[in-house]
């Protein structure tokens, strides 16, 4: 474990050093990421100004729901960035280098890929939203709620990590997975910004079973908010986010291990 940590810090040090070679650019990039993500919030704010509520959710409750996406993504991007951009790693030959180093392939990818600038952008925005909204929607923090919140964030990170681990494994077979990512991650994420209950049954099923974004933010948020639209789902769904995260990650890992042997390298 100490060994892994020291490797992580070695990567982090070199990664940060490399990004902050160009300080002005680094700051512009952080700001750009922040602003780009804030665009979605502005859209939500303007719409809610006009319409008041969506399915009984007020703007503050929606912001709390939204904040979970940014916070989990901010952490996700520290550990799973290399998997998010995995087709590029293969195309540019970086994965060959990973293969000839005496560490677990996934260990290297998880530890070395961090995009710190984007992580700052998303993380700051998420924390800001959380601070603003949590108070206004009246969440009472105690040991139990804080602990469950942390576990839900970890579960949410693992769920998204598992999704990208699966995509990366598919990359060994088809090389180009850009659209797959676009559909099953970025679009699902767009859905997850608003409460699950506003969508039709088919989309709900996808968000529950196929790409379970509902467990990244909707059900954890329901644990804290208990909005009336929760009545249409079994109550225990509010409590299983951490378990879903671990289970999905293990499944994805097994698929990844199986697929690694089909790696074809580039230049052929």
């Amino acid at each position, binding site marked *: 474990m100490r060994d892994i940590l020291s490797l992580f810090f070695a990567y982090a040090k070199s990664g940060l050093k490399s990004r902050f070679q*160009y300080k*002005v*650019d680094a700051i*512009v*990039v952080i*700001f*750009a*990421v922040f*602003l*780009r993500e*804030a*665009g*979605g919030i*502005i*859209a939500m704010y*303007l*719409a809610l*100004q*006009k*319409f008041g509520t*969506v*399915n009984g959710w007020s703007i503050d409750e929606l912001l709390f729901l939204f904040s979970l996406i940014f916070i989990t993504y901010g952490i996700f991007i520290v550990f799973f960035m290399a998997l998010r951009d995995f087709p590029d790693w293969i195309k540019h030959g970086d994965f060959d280098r990973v293969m000839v180093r005496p560490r677990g392939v996934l260990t290297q990818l998880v530890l070395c890929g961090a995009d710190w600038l984007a992580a700052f952008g998303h993380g700051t925005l998420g924390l800001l939203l959380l601070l603003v909204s949590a108070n206004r929607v009246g969440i009472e923090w105690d040991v139990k709620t804080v602990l469950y919140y942390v576990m839900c964030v970890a579960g949410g990170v693992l769920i998204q990590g598992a999704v990208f681990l699966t995509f990366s494994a598919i990359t060994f077979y*088809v090389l*180009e997975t*850009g*659209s*797959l990512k*676009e*559909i099953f991650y970025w*679009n699902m994420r*767009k*859905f997850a910004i*608003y409460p699950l209950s*506003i*969508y*039709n049954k088919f*989309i709900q099923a996808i968000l529950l079973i196929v790409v379970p974004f509902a467990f990244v933010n909707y059900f954890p948020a329901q644990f804290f908010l208990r909005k009336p639209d929760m009545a249409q789902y079994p109550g225990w769904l509010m409590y299983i986010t951490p378990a879903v995260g671990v289970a999905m990650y293990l499944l994805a890992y097994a698929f990844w291990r199986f697929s690694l042997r089909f790696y074809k390298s580039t230049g052929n």
Partner: protein
Amino acid sequence: MSRYIQFAVIRFKSKTAYRFDYFLGILNTLLSFVVYYSIYKALYSGQSYIDGVSFSMVTTSFLISLGLGSAFHKNEMFLQDKIKQGTIANELLKPVNFKLRMLFEDAGEGAFNVVFNFLPTAVIAALFAHLSTPSGALDLILCIASVMLGYIVLWQISFIVQSLSFWLFSVWGLVTIKNVLINIFAGAYIPMWFMPERIRSILHFTPFDSIYFMPVQLYLGQLNEMQVALGFAKQLVWIAVLYVIGEVCWRCGIKRLVVQGG
């Protein structure tokens, strides 16, 4: 000119090589539409008109915005990549106008997106969403004309930001910020009808509201002759202004490149 059209055709063809991506691309656009559709269905929650705007007008406006998004293709890191790799000098030696070539290649990719991605999506969307039909043939033609002008405006803004890569280490941040601002001001996030009145009155002076919203209004037949003429005039003025700025940036950049020996 035929040479430049050839650039567009080549780009169009080269896009057909990725089949897996192609089918998923349609699904992808469709899903973006479904997100908006679902959100506004919930917001309307059964009401037929809000502020005189019907639900089918809102969905039509979203669909048109999506189509414009895919038609308005710009390879925003193109110039930076060429400068970084040091191949810009070779490009300049070729006997073609670099800027026009860029424009036509982008337009070729945009055309591919419209034909192979947006049109199939629109057909599928029409099956489940109640969409408005164009108010008339003339309106449709005007709509397409305004789309083309809008593309040139957007493309030139992109070119100006890109040409800053002669001076900056990376323009990714600026490109991103630019796109956020355009999206907000052009009404890509929220239909312009629902924008607060104060913001709308400011937006009238920018080129943005006529890029996304004017085609929508033309399609729905919401504009009178005066407004149409004014809209087109505004676009033309902006095209001229942006052209001058773009040329200045480009020439200064090239000069700097030559002085520094690229």
